[in-house]
Structures are given as structure tokens and as C-alpha cells.
């Protein structure tokens, strides 16, 4: 075990800030500057071959700095292994590079993360809200958004 993490650590010496294998899930925490290249390496390296992007999501650690964390879950069908890649994002500079050019599946996952948590994905072709209505203000999965703060009901567009 830990084979996947070792490959990352060997190739990206300064970029892997932390890693663990708690509960059987191999996880690495990386620097934002190298994130795109690490994801590209994860996809293209022959020993890793992570061809299926399972999930992209954001977590709000209110009270910590950096505040947000973007979490990528990858899976390799041929090698049958998984990895979780995390990157920390500060609140005042809230962006990560988009990986739509690596996996097209990332498109809507990144839109949802923008919609719910408010993290921008630089290089995304169409970063608009996907789950909530367009006029919604704010990002509901942030910890400082109260759960039942309602907004104005949108009106129908034109007369029937």
C-alpha cells in the first residue's frame, strides 16, 4: 500500500505538502501552482493511468487559513487504484486551474463547485451556475451562509 503516493512523492518532491492513507484512502495535499501538472501526470503516467475523474468538490474550512479546499477523486480502470488529490485555496485569492482539458467530466463538477462554494476555475470554458437559479446571490455551501436564508422567487420570463 502507499504505492501511488510514493510515485507522486518521488516525481513531485517539493509539491506534495502532505499525504496520508487513513481508512485505506490514499490522499495527497499539493501546491496550487503545480496542481494542473500533477493532475496531468496522474492521467498520463503509465504506472498511474488515472483515466476516470470521479469527483471534484470544494470544502469550506471556515476559521482556517487557507479557507477552502478543492478535492479531486481519481480512479484508474486498468490499474484499479484510487487517489484523492487536495489543494488549499485562500479566500482572498480563490481560484484553481481548471482540468477540463484533461478530463471532460470535470466540466460540470467544476461548475457545481463554483456554484456551491464559490471557487473559480481558471480556464473553464463556461463557468456559470449549474444547480441554482441565475439570480441567486452567494454560495450556499459556505459555512457562513445560513441554511434557510431565502431569496426572491424568480418570476416567469414572459407572458404565456
Amino acid at each position, binding site marked *: 500500500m502507499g504505492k501511488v503516493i510514493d510515485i507522486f512523492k518521488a516525481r513531485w518532491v517539493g509539491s506534495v505538502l502532505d499525504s496520508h492513507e487513513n481508512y485505506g484512502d490514499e490522499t495527497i495535499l499539493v501546491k496550487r501552482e503545480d496542481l494542473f501538472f500533477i493532475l496531468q501526470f496522474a492521467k498520463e503516467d503509465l504506472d498511474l493511468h488515472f483515466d476516470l475523474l470521479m469527483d471534484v468538490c470544494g470544502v469550506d474550512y471556515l476559521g482556517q487559513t487557507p479557507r477552502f479546499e478543492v478535492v479531486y477523486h481519481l480512479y484508474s480502470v486498468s490499474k484499479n487504484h484510487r487517489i484523492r488529490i487536495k489543494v488549499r485555496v485562500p479566500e482572498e485569492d480563490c481560484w484553481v486551474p481548471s482540468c477540463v482539458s484533461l478530463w471532460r467530466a470535470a466540466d460540470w463538477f467544476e461548475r457545481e463547485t463554483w456554484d456551491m462554494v464559490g471557487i473559480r476555475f481558471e480556464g473553464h470554458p463556461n463557468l456559470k451556475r449549474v444547480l441554482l*437559479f441565475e439570480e441567486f446571490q452567494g454560495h450556499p455551501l459556505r459555512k457562513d*451562509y445560513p441554511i434557510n436564508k431565502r431569496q426572491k*422567487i*424568480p418570476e*416567469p420570463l414572459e407572458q*404565456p
Partner: protein
Amino acid sequence: MASVVENNFLTTKLSEVVAWGRKFSLWPMPFGTACCAIEFMGAVDSVFDISRFGAELVRFSPRQSDLLLVLGTINYKQAPVLKKIYQQMCEPKWVVAVGACATCGGFYDNYSVLQGIDEVIPVDVYVPGCPPRPEAILMAVVKLQEKITREATQTSVGATGRSPLHKKSA
């Protein structure tokens, strides 16, 4: 000859005949969004059989139906769509809010869910349950039929003037 003529006549009030026609030939339009729509499918299938009550002819167009069954959670994104569909229906029309989410938001008390569809459209019958059993949906149809009979004596039937929430723009 006279006895045959006598037995072939039926005297009643016009409003009762109209109500009889309306209630036993409701054409439902299922505005199904979530789990309650599955229970409605159960009400339509051959085990529970909504066609016993005359409401079999499910029409998916608001222009061709008179009963709007709102089945499932309506959230803020869907609310203008629901209002528009309701406005597109012709008089007389009735609305049944099926399930806890359509009635009052259910257990989704949050930023995205409408706390009851009566925030946007007037409702005739509320069906509690999460989801209500198909028998409960059939009971709602029966209750609506009773309501139509009662309303038969009123001059204005249907949505107009029924509820203070309803705006005259429809």
C-alpha cells in the same frame, strides 16, 4: 307510450349536471418532479387504478387538462415554470398539492425549496405524506370531486377569486 316517455326524463339543475360532468372526467396533468411522481405512477397502474375515478386520461399539456397535480418538491428555480404552467391552463382548473414538499416544503427547510406551492399558485386539495400512498392520491381525487359538487352552486368556479394569494393576472 306515456309511461315510456315519463321514464326517459330526468330533472335536475344545470349546475349539478355540469359538476357531474366535470368531476367524473378530470383530465390530470402530472407536474411530477420527485418521489411523489413515482407514487402517482403507482396510482395509475393496474393495481390501484385511478381510471375508476374517471381521471385516467393523463394529459401532459396544460392546454388540454383541468387538474394540475403537483407531485414533488418545487424549488425556486422551478417556481416560475410552475406558475407559467398554471397560467397556461384554461378555466375551470383545480390544483392538488401532493406530498409534504408541495404542501409545505416537507423537511427541506432551506435556501432552495419553496415552502409550499401556495406561495405561487392557489391550491384546492393538499395531500400529506412523504410520499403519500397511491390510495391517498385517489382519496385526493375523491375529495376534489366532492369539492366540485359543492362549488357547483357558486357562480364563479375555478381559480378566479378563489384564493387571496391568486393574482388577477391569470
